[in-house]
């Protein structure tokens, strides 16, 4: 019984943090939203060298064979720095969904993959830049090609419908259910990272912003709102880490629900304490506010995950 990160895990988190802090991830995200994926791809490569893409891939297939705990550490960092790209798809879903050692090896080396899994994930992220694009449906995993492009609240999420390739045969597949849970868990971790960033930026803003002759951070309404965010995040994190240890579907759903609620509270509170400036696209806060809104419903809406928990608690009704 030791429910905290090991020293190795803390080192891994620290190394990712210093890598990302040194990269201009905000510029990469903004460029990505404008369809210039070059800076994002460079960042992708640097993270692949750190092993992020191969965390869940067995060592004999060229990955690190790490645990889901390392996965959530990595995705919390990706969320905190708003790193763009199909990370959940490439580093969480596909490593569990595909079985071919060649493909796993390619993903571990940093190949970009993406996937749509209707109904919960009807669109594939960045399908146009994915070297390996799939449609997971009816228990099968089919190669696919990008279809109609859709835009949404988070401009860095470039969404595409996909259609299976005509000569598409289902691939030798892994465990699609486990893959979905890993994707939901990674999304929960990303939300946690987004929430932490939104809180940190809000705290520094309210310490310097003054109105009526005081830092607004000295007003109790703002102090209590930010305290509630701190509390929500503090109790979402153990659910994410606990689900990473057990990988029980029910606990994964609890992690996704709690992380989404906490991150959404963080984004609403961040916008409110920033006021109008938080409402502007050029102010970086907007990257996280829009991302949280999108991730809340990604890889299983809160309603889906709550229903899944209730069914498992009382037995399918």
């Amino acid at each position, binding site marked *: 019984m030791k429910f905290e990160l090991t020293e190795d895990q803390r080192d891994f988190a620290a190394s990712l943090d210093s890598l990302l802090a040194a990269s201009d991830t905000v510029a990469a995200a903004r460029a990505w939203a404008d369809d210039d994926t070059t800076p994002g791809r460079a960042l992708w490569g640097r993270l692949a060298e750190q092993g992020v893409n191969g965390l869940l891939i067995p060592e004999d297939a060229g990955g690190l064979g790490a645990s889901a705990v390392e996965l959530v550490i990595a995705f919390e960092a990706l969320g905190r720095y708003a790193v763009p790209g199909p990370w959940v798809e490439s580093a969480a879903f596909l490593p569990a969904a595909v079985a071919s050692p060649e493909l796993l090896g390619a993903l571990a080396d940093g190949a970009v993959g993406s996937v749509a899994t209707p*109904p*919960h*994930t*009807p669109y594939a992220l960045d399908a146009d830049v994915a070297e390996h694009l799939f449609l997971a449906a009816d228990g099968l995993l089919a190669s696919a090609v990008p279809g109609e492009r*859709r*835009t*949404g*609240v*988070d*401009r860095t*999420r470039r*969404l595409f419908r996909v259609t299976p390739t005509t000569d598409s045969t289902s691939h030798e597949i892994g465990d699609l259910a486990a893959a979905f849970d890993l994707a939901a868990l990674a999304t929960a971790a990303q939300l946690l990272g987004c929430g932490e960033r939104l809180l940190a930026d809000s705290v520094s803003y309210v310490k310097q912003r*003054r*109105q*009526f*002759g*005081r830092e607004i951070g000295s*007003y109790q*309404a*703002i102090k209590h709102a930010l305290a509630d965010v701190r509390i929500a995040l503090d109790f979402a994190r153990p659910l994410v880490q606990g689900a990473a240890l057990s990988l029980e579907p029910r606990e994964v759903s609890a992690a996704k629900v709690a992380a989404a609620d906490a991150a959404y509270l963080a984004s*609403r509170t961040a*916008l*409110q304490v920033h*006021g*109008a400036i938080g*409402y*502007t*696209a*050029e102010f970086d806060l*907007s990257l996280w*506010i*829009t991302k949280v*809104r*999108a991730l809340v*419903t*990604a890889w299983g*809406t*809160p*309603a*889906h995950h*709550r*229903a899944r928990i209730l069914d498992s608690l009382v037995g399918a009704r």
Partner: protein
Amino acid sequence: MDLTLSESELAFQAEAREWLAANVPAEPLPSMDTEAGFRAHQEWEATLAAARWSVVSWPREHHGREASLVEWVIFEEEYYRAGAPGRVSQNGIFLLAPILFDHGTPEQQARFLPSMATGEQVWAQAWSEPEAGSDLASLKSTATRDEARGGWLLNGQKTWSSRASFAHWGFGLFRSDPTAQRHQGLTYFLFPLDAEGVTVRPIAQLDGEAGFAEIFFSDVFVPDSDVLGAPGDGWRVAMSTAGNERGLSLRSPGRFCAAADRLVELWRSHGDGVPSAADAVVDAWIKAQAYRLYTWGTVTRLAAGGDMGAAGSVNKVFWSELDIALHETALDLLGPEAELDSSWLDGYTFSLSGPIYAGTNEIQRNIVAERILGLPREIKAAGR
């Protein structure tokens, strides 16, 4: 106590409903925060004005119908029920016009009201400054006397000015007496946005649209004829606007009732997938009804000569939170599609600004607590 409409009110309602049914564009107009959309909305204002529907409560000589408050609420209900376009001239007709009627000279009224009513000239508000948001009285932009030319030189910066990217004129407060503190020494100015020395920098919102802008002033000359009210009296002149903006005008009940009806429609088509959203759908409908009835109460009081007072703050907190909850529920119903661009997502993004502009909800709650409940003011405010 009754909620029945008179014969003439029913006739007014029927006329409005009929005209709107016949004239509201079938396709939604492009966003008014794009150049093309702005023009399209101006044309719509002209269409409204031609049929005397753009400013129903104004006098006849200014394109109005001298509609009563009750009729104004009726018109707004019909307007939103019909799904008619947003009002690009909103800042002018709702925020500036009431002041022009109360404090403007006949010359100013004659010069500004007609083109405002037809949408030919669109007005932008210029209240906030980078360091003066909730604390409006701390604004720093200055007006220096220019006796020689008989006017004032404006300098400084305004921000969060909605519509300013494409509007023609602006209105706002400037510090004309550098020695005066806070609410004193402010003057209310009207100025063309293409005047020499004015620079407008559009600001993109969360959704990427330039819904508001920064305005920079560098020795912008404004003649005395464009000062609204007496120099130094700007705060008093402006506050009636703040009251309006926070209270009745900007958020007519029709807007929320129509949105709640659309939400019920969405529930019909999507509810089976999200049964747990049922209560939120019902609560949105309940609150929209509450807001509608509350407004009828306010209208009754105002018609009897009462004023909004701090009730505008009660109002603002309620509608802004209702607006967000209603759109959050719609996104819940949309499920995995919620993140995609849609009219619901647009409405959601817009709703997020509700608790911020026109006095944050924190400020409004302070007002409710202090002015309605009589609780002590903040230590700081009391202390110094």
